């Protein structure tokens, strides 16, 4: 295959065990140039181990791992010159300033972006001369991303870039990551926020217990599993489940978190039938709504577990 120019990551049957723990147990995936690829999963799923093998921080036990067309075991130095790395929750030299840290890290590479330009890119201009230890959580995370961009990398690895940030800081980081994609940088990120993956990623892989369970574009993953949409409502008293399950278009009825949820292939038909039935027994459905299935539902369906911190 002549995939070298198109693929930035090629992983085939990667395994990495720690003693009896199969952290990564036969993972295969590819990432194309310019793509934002997300790896989703709960803590301990094997996401970080996978990404650290790709970054050259850990040797794989077996399998093929190529980054930018180069084997990670044979060409770690050449790869490190061309990738950007942001690790989970790293606090850097606490008493160096933002400018000093960017200058220092820049000096580790053959080519590097001017520090001023990086500081502007992550919007840390006002904190350029503040010590790293005095930055807020969001600012530290932006600094950490600026450090990942110091060599103008072709491929950036972001390991849970928004964990622990407030919603506003998270959104500002999302803008930053979209900006990277706009200028053609490939991105591989891990997250356990479904919303983040939906917002940012062209494709995602859902990982659990060292395996990739499902992979593809977010809309495909949802569509593949959930053709129906969900009609949800509250009522008092509750309507009998067996009655609801017989309504037109309903494939399944369930109680979820205090709400009654009807999974339907024919939303107008189901809603019409629901209102008619409710009227017959003089019960008024409240907070009636319709939603598409989400990645959260896909994960729940795949693993039987909710995906939370």
């Amino acid at each position, binding site marked *: 295959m002549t995939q070298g120019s198109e693929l930035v990551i090629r992983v085939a049957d990667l395994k990495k065990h720690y003693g009896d723990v199969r952290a990564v147990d036969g993972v295969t995936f590819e990432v194309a140039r310019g793509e934002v690829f997300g790896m989703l999963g709960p803590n301990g799923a094997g996401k970080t181990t996978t990404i650290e093998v790709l*970054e*050259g*921080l850990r040797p794989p036990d077996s399998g093929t791992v190529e980054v930018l067309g180069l084997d990670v075991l044979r060409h770690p*130095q050449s790869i*490190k*010159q061309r990738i950007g*790395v942001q*690790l*989970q*929750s*790293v*606090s*850097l*030299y*606490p*008493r*160096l300033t933002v400018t*000093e840290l960017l*200058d*220092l*890290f820049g*000096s*580790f*590479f*053959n080519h590097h972006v001017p520090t001023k330009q990086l500081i502007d890119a992550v919007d840390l201009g006002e904190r350029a001369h503040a*010590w790293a230890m005095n930055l807020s959580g969001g600012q530290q995370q932006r600094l950490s991303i600026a*450090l990942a961009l110091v060599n103008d990398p072709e491929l950036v690895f972001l390991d849970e870039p928004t964990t622990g940030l407030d919603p506003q800081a998270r959104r500002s980081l999302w803008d930053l990551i979209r900006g990277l994609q706009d200028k053609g940088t490939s991105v591989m990120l891990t997250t356990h926020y479904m919303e983040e993956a939906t917002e940012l990623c062209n494709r995602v892989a859902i990982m659990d217990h060292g395996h990739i369970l499902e992979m593809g574009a977010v809309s495909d993953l949802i569509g593949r599993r959930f053709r129906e949409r969900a009609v949800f409502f509250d009522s008092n008293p509750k309507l009998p489940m067996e009655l609801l399950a017989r309504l037109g278009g309903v494939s399944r009825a369930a109680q979820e978190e205090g709400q009654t949820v009807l999974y339907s292939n024919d939303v107008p038909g189901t809603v019409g039938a629901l209102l008619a039935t409710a009227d017959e027994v003089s019960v008024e459905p409240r907070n009636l709504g319709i939603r598409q299935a989400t990645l959260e539902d896909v994960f729940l369906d795949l693993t039987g577990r909710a995906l939370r911190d």
Partner: protein
Amino acid sequence: MGTLLGLTVANVKSLARDRAALFWTIFFPIMFVFLFGWIFGGSGGSKISVGFVDQDGTQASGGLRQALAGVTLLSLHDGTLDAEKAAMQHGDVSAVIVVPKGLQDAFVQARTGNAASIAVQVYGDPSQNQTTQVVQGAVAQVANGFNLAALGGSAILTVSQLTLQSTSISSVAYLVPSILAMALMQLGIFAAIPLVQQREKGILKRIGATPLARWKLVGSNVLLRLMVAIVDAVLIIGIGFAVFNVHIVGNLLEVGAIVLLGSASFLAIGFALASFLKTEEQAQGVVQVVQLPMMFLSGIFFSFDFLPGFLQTVARFLPLTYLGDALRQVMVNGAQVAPLGADLAILAGWLVVCLGISARSFRWE
């Protein structure tokens, strides 16, 4: 080379901006120099204050006073017998020398061939035997000189003074090299703490994800510590000289070389410790467990010979014993525990062994 320099500058800045680290690496040893200097140095250097009571008041007693004043160990304090005794009871003088009336008469009698004798009295405190003996010795020496001169003879047996510092007396001169050795030991062993900290925080791993060669990361740490070692040495030797009058008899380049070798050995020990420690809290504890007993058992603050036998055996295994010994031999010509070459060989041995351990066991994450 540029990156090594850049990293070293980053380390220097980090240290300079960290007050706690600065205190331990630079101010703590200096504090020791002052503390021990004041305790063992006394206010007037190493002189003994002695009361001098001249009851004769003649040319002869004046000559005796002049001779005693020429003894560098003594600092004379004139007064009446009652005043000087009171001063001694207060602790203002350590002894009182009394020249009784009739001194000159006795000499005159002796020259004319008559038998004559007169006693110069020395009051001493039996609880300060050493001091009293020094004063009595000095008086006896001066008195002998007078006797010989009076009889017109010349001395057959004389004592010529040679300098040789002895470790049996606690002195600032003994302590300055010791404090320097302590500072270098702590500087090296304490290096384990930031290393473990940087590993725990993922800084080592993050840098491992860049093309930076690892030896440069280690090298910059070593350079920083060696620079601080030189600063410590200059400050400690400088203060010892300027404030406490401790002269370095040896070659400063030799001192510098021993400082660097000693620092490198203890740095290697710090690195080896960091190889086995996981958390910063662990590191803080273990570093103290290693350095505190070493400080007290290696004879840097008191003579090696004062240690009981089994502790001497322990001390013979501690690298600090040999760094202190080497520095003392070169800096102030102190008595030796081992020949200088053996000291240096043992330090080099620790360096090689601990570097080997670090190379095998050090983990970056």
